[in-house]
């Protein structure tokens, strides 16, 4: 058998079922790759013992001809998902020592289907960031480098650990979350497939909350098929999340390869930015041609409110975050300051010590826009513009089935290159954030390399709960792009 880590998740799943490979072998193969890839800093907590125990149980089930859809498949879990008995940090100092006594629904679903947990993956603190640099545990390094250059690059964020470990074949696939682009932007920067499902498709129960009306879990995987398999297991109604939607989860894998002939693909002119690298524009045009060649009808559309999506997001998300993060007070879990005079200074010092700069900045903005006298001018106005953006998409989807755009406004950039100016960093999510505001499903698929040899992705957006059509489109795009490049394993 070839190197196990080179098998896609689908190939590994089939190999396990046919007993060509055991869960123990697959788990050990990934654990040694994880051990050797410390330089990428993709992992916060490696759970080797747990992984071997889970693999053993999987092998016992497989031996009896039993086992779920992901039986014996080793996965990485973003450290935003609560895992029973395993440290869960959200990339923050304030969650020091937090060992959940319960399991998130999404990870519970994966274990139900037989998957194996390799470890908890690094991320921006509380998922607030686009470069992984806000993590208390230091930035993840992108496995991809510019040609002939050893400058460490960002894997994107916030799911940087998930994207980097999938790109470097340190796990078969990973869980991730997306509040403004945290699945799709890192997927684009690492040549992986990232899927943010419709809001309500995956349960948020047990996922550390950032902005509850925008947060949604999804997979980062090596290809479209692997992402389809992952999402099928992760998704589903959960009575423990009141915004989880009770509707059947289709077999996304079955949608792959179905004809896209006659599908109407919208191309929104507002996603063409003035300062966007020419290569991204060229790749977008290429993507349009690919879809046309596959028999799709290309429709020019206009989404004039696009430029207001990020400003809306930077009111709504910090407002919700300031409320969600009020729970970190040094009383119920995590870090408590040693020095304080009274209960107020205990709160203030614990939070000052426990949160990083970007998290503090967003809590302050959120507190400000919700405070008396400013609520109407900022928060209420943002919610109204959000409604208009939602309506604008609903109108567009009367004319088209999918929308095709670039995933991110640039390829991977150097660590430290954009960290001085928050607004410059926020612009990373310019193409992805609209889907969060409107609750739509969106995905990034690797489509090509730029002149420096760095990957670029294209994004497809679909109607709410129509991930099936999105997967059909993704697969067509993937087939046409024929992307097969891999980063050199300089870290090994």
């Amino acid at each position, binding site marked *: 058998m070839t190197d196990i880590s080179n098998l896609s998740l689908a190939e590994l799943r089939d190999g396990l079922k046919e007993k060509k490979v055991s869960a123990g072998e697959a788990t050990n193969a990934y654990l040694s790759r994880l051990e050797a890839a410390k330089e990428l800093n993709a992992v916060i907590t490696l759970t080797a013992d747990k992984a071997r125990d889970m693999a053993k149980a999987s092998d016992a089930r497989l031996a009896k001809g039993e086992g779920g859809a992901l039986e014996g498949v080793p996965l990485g879990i973003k450290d935003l998902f609560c895992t029973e008995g395993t440290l869960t940090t959200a990339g923050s100092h304030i969650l020091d020592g937090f060992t959940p006594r319960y399991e998130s629904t999404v990870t519970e679903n994966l274990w139900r289907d037989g998957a194996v947990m390799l470890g908890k993956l690094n991320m921006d603190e509380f998922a607030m960031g686009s470069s992984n640099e806000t993590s208390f545990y230091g930035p993840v390094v992108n496995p991809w480098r510019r040609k002939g250059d050893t400058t460490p690059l960002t894997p994107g964020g916030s799911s940087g650990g998930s994207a980097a470990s999938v790109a470097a074949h340190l796990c078969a696939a990973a869980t991730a979350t997306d509040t403004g682009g945290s699945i799709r932007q890192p997927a684009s920067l690492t040549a992986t497939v990232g899927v943010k499902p419709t809001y309500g498709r995956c349960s948020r129960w047990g996922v550390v909350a950032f902005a509850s009306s925008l947060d949604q879990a999804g997979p980062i995987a090596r290809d479209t098929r692997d992402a389809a398999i992952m999402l099928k297991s992760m998704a589903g109604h959960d009575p423990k999340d009141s915004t989880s939607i009770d509707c059947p989860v289709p077999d996304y894998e079955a949608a792959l390869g179905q004809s896209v002939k006659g599908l109407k693909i919208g191309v929104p002119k507002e996603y063409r930015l003035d300062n966007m690298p020419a290569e991204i524009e060229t790749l977008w045009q290429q993507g349009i041609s690919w879809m046309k060649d596959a028999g799709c009808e290309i429709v020019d559309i206009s989404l004039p409110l696009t430029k207001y999506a990020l400003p809306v997001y930077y009111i709504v998300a910090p407002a919700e975050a300031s409320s969600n993060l009020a729970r970190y007070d040094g009383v119920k879990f995590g870090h408590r300051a040693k020095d304080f005079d009274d209960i107020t200074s205990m709160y203030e*010092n614990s939070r000052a010590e426990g949160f990083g700069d970007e998290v503090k900045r967003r809590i302050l903005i959120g507190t400000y826009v919700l405070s008396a006298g400013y609520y109407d001018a900022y928060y209420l106005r943002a919610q109204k513009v959000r409604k208009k953006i939602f309506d604008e998409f609903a109108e567009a989807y009367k004319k088209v089935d999918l929308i095709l755009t670039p995933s991110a406004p640039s390829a991977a950039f150097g660590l430290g290159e954009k960290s001085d100016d928050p607004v410059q960093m926020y612009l990373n999510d310019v193409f992805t954030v609209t889907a969060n505001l409107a609750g739509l499903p969106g995905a990034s698929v690797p489509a090509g390399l730029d002149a420096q040899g760095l990957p670029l992705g294209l994004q497809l957006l679909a109607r709410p709960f129509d991930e099936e059509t999105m997967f059909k489109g993704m697969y067509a795009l993937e087939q046409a792009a024929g992307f097969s490049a891999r980063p050199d394993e300089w870290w090994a």
Partner: protein
Amino acid sequence: MAIDKDTVRKVARLARIAEPEERLEPLATEISGILGWIEQLNEVDVEGVEAMASTVDVSLPMREDKLQQGDTGGGQSDNVVANAPKTEDHFFVVPKVVE
């Protein structure tokens, strides 16, 4: 709108985050920069538009009014306090609040 040092001090207090005096001015500059960028929202006509808090168009589900079992039910006091920095029996211990 630009915000000043005193506003940052007040907001930090509301958010229960201790910000040292020397951080207030730089924070005021950073936050004013972000708010300035956000203010382009004033260009959008929102007359008569309803505010949207959630994209999910369903009413919140109701459940039977009885004690639940499992993670979201009762009898979880050991688990509730398991991660707290300081506890006594099933209580969270905090500095004295009432003199």
